[in-house]
């Protein structure tokens, strides 16, 4: 892969919880405008990797770097690491070291948005309000950090109208315009998943991290989600990082797959290549590598 196409670079990431090593020396890259899937059996450390990328956890070791712009900034990575600061901004690009940033700045400045394995919507707020909370930082600026807003200046009213319009476009896209004024907690499960994706998209991300977006969806909802993700990639040109168990989603939409097992990377490549990898099959079947052929014969693969 050309270094210029890389948007996220995870290097030697290790995360320890006391004596437990959840992720060990993991390195991978995600390419701009592609869907990268992170898969692996239960407990392989996928969500831990997500929490490290979005700074909800501080990694024990390793470097997580994200670039804005066309990737010419990668040359400054080592200089940035040594300078001890979080980011370097240049004309038409920026480079961020995510592990050095608090989690809210990862979204606000580095523009990495995420969703959660167990849906975390604001259940008691309306669908529309959920999408407006996601535009908090832009609206906060427009309201003069509350001051202009309290005074009722028209500049804020205009900004709020624009925010509502943006939310409405997302509601049209996920088919929830009719339920905009109802509470988010009342939506059916599949709609809540779509709303969470739309809410993350309202933060204007460069990289969208989705933690098991298809979990608990029926085949039809799952197919709708595939279309939504592909449309997002196509229309906004953003990169998507995906954790998923549902192989029909993973194999259909990902461009690149990274497989984890017990916190260690065991495969990395195109979907077809990963599917045929003996170590991946062994990990999923829960057996040692040399037993795969026997077990496959037993279960009739």
């Amino acid at each position, binding site marked *: 892969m050309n270094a210029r196409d890389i948007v996220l670079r995870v290097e030697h990431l290790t995360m320890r919880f006391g004596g437990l090593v959840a992720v060990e020396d993991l390195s991978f890259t995600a390419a701009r405008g592609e869907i990268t899937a992170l898969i692996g059996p239960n407990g392989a450390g996928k969500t831990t990797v997500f929490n490290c990328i979005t700074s909800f956890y501080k990694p024990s070791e390793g470097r997580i770097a994200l670039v804005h712009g066309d990737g010419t900034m990668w040359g400054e990575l080592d200089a940035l690491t040594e300078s001890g600061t979080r980011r370097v901004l240049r004309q038409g690009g920026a480079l961020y070291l995510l592990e050095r940033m608090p989690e809210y700045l990862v979204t606000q400045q580095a523009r990495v948005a995420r969703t959660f394995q167990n849906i975390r919507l604001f*259940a*008691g*707020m309306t669908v529309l309000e959920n999408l407006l909370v996601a535009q908090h930082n832009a609206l906060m600026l427009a309201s003069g950090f509350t001051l202009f807003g*309290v005074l009722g200046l028209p500049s804020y009213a205009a900004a709020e109208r624009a925010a509502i319009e943006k939310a409405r476009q997302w509601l049209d896209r996920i088919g929830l315009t009719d339920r905009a*004024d109802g509470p988010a907690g009342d939506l059916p499960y599949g709609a809540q998943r779509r709303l969470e994706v739309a809410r993350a998209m309202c933060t204007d991300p460069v990289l969208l991290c989705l933690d098991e977006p298809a979990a608990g969806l029926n085949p039809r909802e799952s197919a709708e989600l595939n279309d939504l993700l592909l449309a997002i990639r196509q229309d906004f040109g953003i990169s998507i990082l995906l954790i998923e168990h549902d192989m029909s989603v993973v194999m259909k939409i990902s461009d690149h797959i990274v497989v984890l097992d017990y916190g260690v990377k065991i495969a990395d490549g195109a979907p077809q290549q990963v599917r045929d990898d003996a170590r991946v099959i062994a990990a999923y079947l829960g057996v040692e590598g040399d037993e795969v052929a026997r077990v496959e014969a037993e279960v009739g693969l």
Partner: protein
Amino acid sequence: MSAEMQISRIDVVRALRDAGWTALLAFGLFLPLIGFVTVQNMDRQLVLDTRFGLLAAFVAIVAGGRLAYSLIIAPLFARAALRPTAAPSALRTAAARWFGPFAIGFVIAYPAIVLSITGTGGAVKWVDNFGIQILIYVMLGWGLNIVVGLAGLLDLGYAAFYAVGAYSYALLAKNFGLGFWMLLPLSGILAAFWGILLGFPVLRLRGDYLAIVTLAFGEIIRLVLINWVPVTKGYAGVSGIPRPTFFGIPFNASEEGFAAVFGLEFTPMYRTLFLYYVILALALFTAFVTLRLRRLPVGRAWEALREDEIACRSLGINTTNTKLTAFAMGAMFAGFAGSFFAARQGFISPESFTFLESATIVAIVVLGGMGSMLGVAIAAIVMIGGTEIMRELDFLKRIFGETFDPTQYRMLIFGFFMVLMMIWRPRGLIVTRAPSVFLKERKLIGADLVKEGHG
């Protein structure tokens, strides 16, 4: 038919057993409290006396109440819950629409109404004890509503900020001769500053832990006020606080007094009326700012914080700043109310800012329904107005004898109403949440979805 009867018989048996246990519990609780009493005999010695008749009466009341609840009230509620909720009628919608303007009109006209009914003599009591007193608590309730109702941070030391505002006004006005209108914003700013100061250490705490630390903070402020005698005069309190003037014109009987300047006959009523409209304006200002803030990103972030803090962080919201602004805004309004309180009383002491004060304000917010401005206002009227009404029930002495003092039963009646509220409206008077923004129509959100916050 027979199956139905069987079920009802089981219900009766269960209710009786339930009432029996309740009676046992009440007996255990009341035996030392009511069953025994120490009295002085003829030789001025303390002797133990028993009041088993009264004890039996109390236990019977508790058991009877429990029986009535499980046999009559609980089935009524269960049936009401099964009934489909009817769409609100046009009349009800109109009432909801016009209630706010009507209420504001009423409180503006309230002194005039009282004056026309009772005349100048009796009006001071009704405007001062009822009007001003209630409005102070409405304002405090609305201020705390930002912290507890919107941001979901349980603050049990709110009276501390009330005290900061009151002492700021008292000490600065007395020692530096600054005026009321200058000190009002200054007290608010000082209280907000203390709000932020409290906010920093408690940011990481949630739920019960947060409540305990805020409680401790309230006590610290009170103990400092008691023990820092050179500045605060300790228990003796600060007296002779300058009274507010009508933009420089004092309310007294002198030549330069308000009455003389405007060519009116002097009565103490003018000062009371002035204070009434000042606190009314302050309370309406609180309501206006809170309603505005709810529609701004900061207000939505407070409510989002109450719903799910982790999701907030994932959306790029700085939760530290958001919590601090909630603490600061809540404290600021308490500071305003405190400086008004000091100016109105002319005397303040640490006794006015005990934990009971914080608890009363929290009770107003919880009783009103967390987050609802209207509910908080109604709860303040009921709780504070109810306390004042107790003082007016002198006719009860004719029934129960001269030694009967209705105010002594305040807490008992409070407790009774609290229990009723827990049964009837566990989430407060007004439980629906009005969304801050809408696309087509504003639909209220039921309490079952709205979270109460957990720190």
